[in-house]
C-alpha cells in the first residue's frame, strides 16, 4: 500500500511537472531534547540521559494546483524515532466541487482530536506537542476519502467533515490493521472561539503479543476471557469534544475523549485535559492539567472462579497482571513557555509531571526549536 502510494505520489508530481504547473514546497520541523528527572522511570519515552532523537522530526510538503479545482498535496515526514526513515503522512488529491465543498482522496490525517490536523506543526500551537497522555492513538494517518464542507452562518464559520478509510501500522513490536474507519467531525469557529466535536469508529485487529495467554484460555471452559484479551476485529468507538479560545493574548483549551474498544484489553479510556496560556509580547507561558485514564474490559474474566485448579489459578494470576497493567488513572500537569525569538522559529521549554500511581510522581523536561519554512 505504501509503495503504491509512493508510486502515485511520484507520478502526480511528474504530471504536474509536465503540465508546467507550479509546485510549492514548504515544510516544518521540531528538534526536541528531553530528560526524565528520575533514573528509574521513563516518561514520554525519555530516561535520565538527555536525548535529542526520539521527539525530533522534519516534514516537507509539496503542493500543486492542477487547475479546474484539482490540487495535489504530498507530505513526507522523517522522525528521529523511526531512524529518520521518511514516511508519507499525507498524499492526496483534492477536488473542489464548489467554493464551500471539497473531496479529498488519498492518504490524510485521521481527525480524532482537536489538534489532529496539525499534530506535527508545533509552530501552530503552544506545547512542544499535544500531551501524549491524552493523544494516545498510535497512528495518525489513514488511506481513504473525505468530504469537507465549510460554510458561513452569520459570523460563524462551520466545517463539517466525513471520512472513510483504512490503515495498517506498527507500534512497538505489535502490528495492527484497522478497517472501515468512519469519522465525522463538526467544528464551529466564531470570533476567537473554536468548538469541535468528532465521532470515530473502526474495526481493529492486532497482535498484542498475548498469543500464549489467549491460547491457554481457549483450552479452558472460559475461552471468552482469551478472546477478550485478543484484539481481533474489535469495534472501537470514540467521541471527542473540545474547545479553544484564543484571542492572541489569553489561550484556553479543553478536550475530553471518551472512547472504548469493545470487549478488549484496551477497554474504556477517557482522557481529558485543560490548558491555559497567556502571552507577554513574544513570549507565551502556559499550564496544562489532565488525566490519562484507562480501564481494561474484564467482565468475562471476573466470572472465572478462583480455586478450581492450580493451573487455572496461575492463568488467572497472569491475566490479572495484564489487566492491572491496562487499568490506571494517571493525572498529569505541565508548565511551559514559548518564545518567538525569530520570524520562523520558536523556542519552547516544558516541564511535565505524571503521577504513575505505584511509581509515584515523575517528571520530564523537554526543550524544542520548532520551525516552519
Amino acid at each position: 500500500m505504501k509503495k503504491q502510494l509512493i508510486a502515485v505520489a511520484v507520478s502526480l508530481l511528474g504530471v504536474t511537472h509536465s503540465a508546467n504547473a507550479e509546485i510549492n514546497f514548504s515544510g516544518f520541523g521540531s528538534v526536541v531534547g528531553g530528560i526524565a528527572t528520575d533514573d528509574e522511570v521513563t516518561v514520554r519515552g525519555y530516561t535520565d540521559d538527555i536525548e535529542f532523537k526520539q521527539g525530533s522530526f522534519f516534514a516537507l510538503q509539496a503542493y500543486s494546483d492542477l487547475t479546474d479545482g484539482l490540487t495535489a498535496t504530498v507530505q513526507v515526514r522523517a522522525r528521529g524515532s523511526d531512524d529518520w526513515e521518511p514516511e508519507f503522512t499525507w498524499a492526496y488529491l483534492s477536488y473542489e466541487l464548489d467554493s464551500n465543498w471539497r473531496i479529498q482522496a488519498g492518504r490524510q490525517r485521521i481527525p480524532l482530536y482537536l489538534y489532529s490536523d496539525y499534530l506535527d506543526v508545533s509552530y501552530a500551537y503552544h506545547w512542544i506537542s499535544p500531551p501524549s497522555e491524552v493523544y494516545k492513538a498510535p497512528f495518525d494517518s489513514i488511506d481513504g476519502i473525505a468530504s469537507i464542507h465549510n460554510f458561513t452562518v452569520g459570523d460563524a464559520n462551520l466545517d463539517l467533515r466525513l471520512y472513510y478509510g483504512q490503515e495498517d501500522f506498527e507500534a512497538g513490536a505489535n502490528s495492527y490493521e484497522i478497517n472501515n474507519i468512519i469519522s465525522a467531525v463538526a467544528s464551529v469557529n466564531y470570533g476567537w472561539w473554536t468548538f469541535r466535536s468528532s465521532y470515530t469508529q473502526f474495526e481493529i485487529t492486532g497482535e498484542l503479543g498475548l498469543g500464549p495467554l489467549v491460547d491457554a484460555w481457549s483450552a479452558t471452559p472460559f475461552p471468552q476471557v482469551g478472546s477478550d484479551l485478543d484484539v481481533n476485529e474489535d469495534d472501537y468507538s470514540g467521541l471527542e469534544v473540545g474547545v479553544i479560545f484564543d484571542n492572541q493574548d489569553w489561550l484556553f483549551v479543553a478536550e475530553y475523549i471518551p472512547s472504548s474498544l469493545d470487549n478488549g484489553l484496551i477497554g474504556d479510556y477517557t482522557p481529558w485535559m485543560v490548558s491555559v496560556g497567556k502571552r507577554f509580547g513574544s513570549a507565551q507561558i502556559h499550564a496544562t492539567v489532565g488525566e490519562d485514564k484507562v480501564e481494561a474490559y474484564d467482565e468475562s474474566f471476573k466470572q472465572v472462579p478462583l480455586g478450581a485448579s492450580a493451573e487455572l489459578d496461575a492463568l488467572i494470576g497472569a491475566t490479572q497482571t495484564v489487566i492491572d497493567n491496562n487499568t490506571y488513572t494517571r493525572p498529569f500537569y505541565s508548565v511551559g513557555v514559548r518564545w518567538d525569538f525569530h520570524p520562523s522559529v520558536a523556542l519552547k521549554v516544558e516541564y511535565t509531571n505524571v503521577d504513575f500511581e505505584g511509581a509515584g510522581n515523575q517528571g520530564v523536561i523537554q526543550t524544542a526549536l520548532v520551525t516552519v519554512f
Partner: protein
Amino acid sequence: MKQRLMLNKLTLVLVTAMMTISTSVVADVAVVVNSSSAEMPDQSKVAQIFLGKDKSLTPFMQKGAVAEEFIDKVLSRNASQYKAYWAKLAFTGGGRPPKELGSDAEVLSTVSGSADAIGFVDAAAVNDSVKVLFTL
C-alpha cells in the same frame, strides 16, 4: 509634594500623547482594491479575506513595517501569530496563505491589474490606479 505629583502626572500625559502621535505618524496603511471592484469589504470582512475565511477577493500580503501594522490592526495578531495561523491551515490542505509581494509598487501593479485583488500599501504610495477601501 503635591506639586511634584501633579508634574509627574503632566509628564505622563505628555509622554503618552507624544507616543500616540508618533505611532500614528509612523506609517498609515491604505487597504486597496482594483478600481473596477464591485466588492467594497469593511475592515472585519477584509480580515476574513486575509485569513482565508472569505473568498470573495484574492488577498496579497506584503513585507516589512506596513505588513506588521496591517496584521496588528486588521488581523489583531502579531507576525508570528499570523504565520502560525497559516501554518495550521497550509499543512492540512485547509488553504494557501496570501501570496507575499515585495513592495508597495508591486502591490499597486498587481491590484490595478487584477479585478478581484486586494492588498495594502503605505498610504503615501497610493496612486489613482487603485481604489482605497480605508486607511489605518
